[in-house]
């Protein structure tokens, strides 16, 4: 059965998929922990995976009321509103992927002052949280750059133009990736073109990538899922198999672009781990335990053709 006794459990559906049987075998009288996940948006597969990880933990833990509150797009004001809602909804802990380090800070401090525990997943904000489970984006970006550098050098292209497709200049995580990516080319003799922004829209990213290709770029970087799909498709459409495309995140579309050789690789984050570990940490803290590792790099894996079966 589900959710007897707990009024707020599981009025949820879709976005806030409450885990099956979350409240069911709870000992009578003991209150469930209310944990709310707030992501940057509801669009990227990435967040779906974070949510999946959370749900997995919730199913194991069996004493959590879980909701996913997602803004419909990356927007600080919306994210802050979600935090306020979580406070009003009497959350015990908030798992949050901060859009940027500053904007959300006051709202989170407000939450903290109400005794709500903050755990960061994917991206942290400036105010201190109980723990952070995220990719080290700058390092991962640099890794992506090194992959591209290696491939270019192997193909004997020691100079040339490189295009960068990013979400916008406001999303801290992707800006860090770009920074890392660019740093890999310092002093290596390549010309990095001015960044173009696509809001993570795959079609827009592709128009931008097409234009880079026309400008004679030898390599293209996509800073998140939508950007990467656009880059991969543009390379595919150009028919130039010697173009090197490198991106971020994993999705079905990205896999097939890697498989058919349009993309060299993608930096696969581990969003499920972020969700799973984040949720577990939240519950530990709420039950009064302390956790050792407060800053966990959930790591990236470089997914190339041979690593995708």
């Amino acid at each position, binding site marked *: 059965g589900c959710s007897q006794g707990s009024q*707020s459990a599981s*009025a949820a559906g879709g*976005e806030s998929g409450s885990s099956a049987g979350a409240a069911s075998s709870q000992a009578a009288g003991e209150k469930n922990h209310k944990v709310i996940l707030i992501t940057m948006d*509801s669009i990227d597969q990435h967040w779906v995976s974070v949510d999946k990880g959370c749900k997995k933990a919730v199913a194991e833990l069996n004493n959590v009321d879980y909701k996913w509150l997602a803004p419909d797009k990356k927007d*600080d004001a919306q994210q802050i509103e979600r935090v306020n809602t979580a406070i*009003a909804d009497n959350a015990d802990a908030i798992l949050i992927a901060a859009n*940027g380090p*500053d904007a959300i800070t006051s*709202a989170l401090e407000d939450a903290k002052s109400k005794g709500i525990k903050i755990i960061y997943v994917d991206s942290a904000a400036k105010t201190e949280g109980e723990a952070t489970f995220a990719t080290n984006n700058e390092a991962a970006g640099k890794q992506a750059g090194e992959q591209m550098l290696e491939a270019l050098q192997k193909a004997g292209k020691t100079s040339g133009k490189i295009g960068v497709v990013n979400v916008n*200049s406001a999303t801290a995580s992707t800006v860090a990736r770009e920074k890392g990516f660019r740093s890999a080319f310092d002093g290596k003799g390549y010309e990095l073109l001015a960044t173009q922004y696509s809001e993570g829209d795959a079609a827009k990213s592709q128009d931008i990538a097409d234009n880079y290709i026309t400008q004679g770029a030898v390599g293209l970087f996509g800073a998140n899922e939508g950007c990467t799909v656009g880059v991969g498709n543009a390379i595919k459409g150009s028919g130039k198999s010697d173009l090197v495309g490198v991106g971020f995140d994993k999705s079905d579309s990205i896999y097939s672009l890697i498989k058919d050789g349009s993309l060299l690789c993608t930096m696969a984050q581990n969003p499920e781990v972020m969700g799973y570990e984040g949720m577990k940490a939240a519950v530990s803290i709420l039950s009064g335990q302390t956790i050792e590792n407060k800053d966990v790099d959930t790591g990236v894996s470089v997914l190339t053709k041979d690593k995708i079966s």
Partner: protein
Amino acid sequence: METKDRQNAWKRFMSIRGVGQVVTVTAGLIVLCIVFSMLSSSFYSERNVGNLLRQIAPILIIGIGQAYVLITGNIDLSIGSVVGMSCMISATLMTKGVAPFAATMITILICLGVGVLNGTLVAKCKVPPFIATLGTMTIARGVAQIVNNNYNTDAIGDSAQGFRNLFYYGKTLGLYNTIWIAVILFLAFDFLLGKTRTGRHIYAIGSNMEAAKLSGVNSVNTTVIVYVVSAFCACVVGLITCAIAGMGTMDAGNMYEMYAVAAAAIGGISTFGGEGLLVGTVVGASIWGVLQNGLQFAGAPVAIRNIVIGTIVVISVLLDVVIRKNKPRKKAKRVLPVQVGSAK
């Protein structure tokens, strides 16, 4: 006879510019609140009511601005971008060390400039309002981006804590300051619209530009005024947004012009001009805010939320149309019928 008189008085009351719609949607608002309270116990908690009112405030403020413009029969699509501009300019100035008060004043001045530009393009250059403000919408967004060199700003810092409290975090007499700001702006602009000469001129040019002009109304000035009011309201919301985040974000206010139209139109402001009561916008903004907030509490996914909100926008206007249809309507005529002697 007496009941008929009373009936007539009621009918007449309902037929004043937009009163009918206001009554209908207020009823709708109450129903919504009841439904959401039933769906989630936290909805009607003290905490959430304060929160909810604070969420409604910015929508109300831009709704007021849009209502002014709509009553003159025009539209302002630049609202969202002006919010962004205001947010970015004030934040950039503060991060550069300008005192919050000075930063606020400079921001307001620049935003009013957009209003003047809009009004001039529409009234003086006769550019269709939709296109004129579509243009300034794009330009203002560009300005918001260029102001800090295409990056969101850093945190506006501790010296701006007063600013942040004033616009968002602080409370006065138990109510959030944001709510007070909305209340004060509403009262002021309702007074301006309802009780002053300028307000009358706004209705007049929305009802019949030519007749208003021939009655001595300066249509260019009046149009500029409404666009300036709209830009001012957007500017205030931009300052609030800056206070909320404590930093400038370039895409702040995205789509707000549409929320503003929705709030005003749900509240009975005719998009054809000449009619509507500002109090309707309060109800319209409240419906909008309650929907956003309540649907979150009810745990409705984004998709459902959009479908519900869209449907309510359409239905609220549909209701008004249905009500009007049953009201006697005069056909516009080139020649006016006259009833002499026989009229009682």
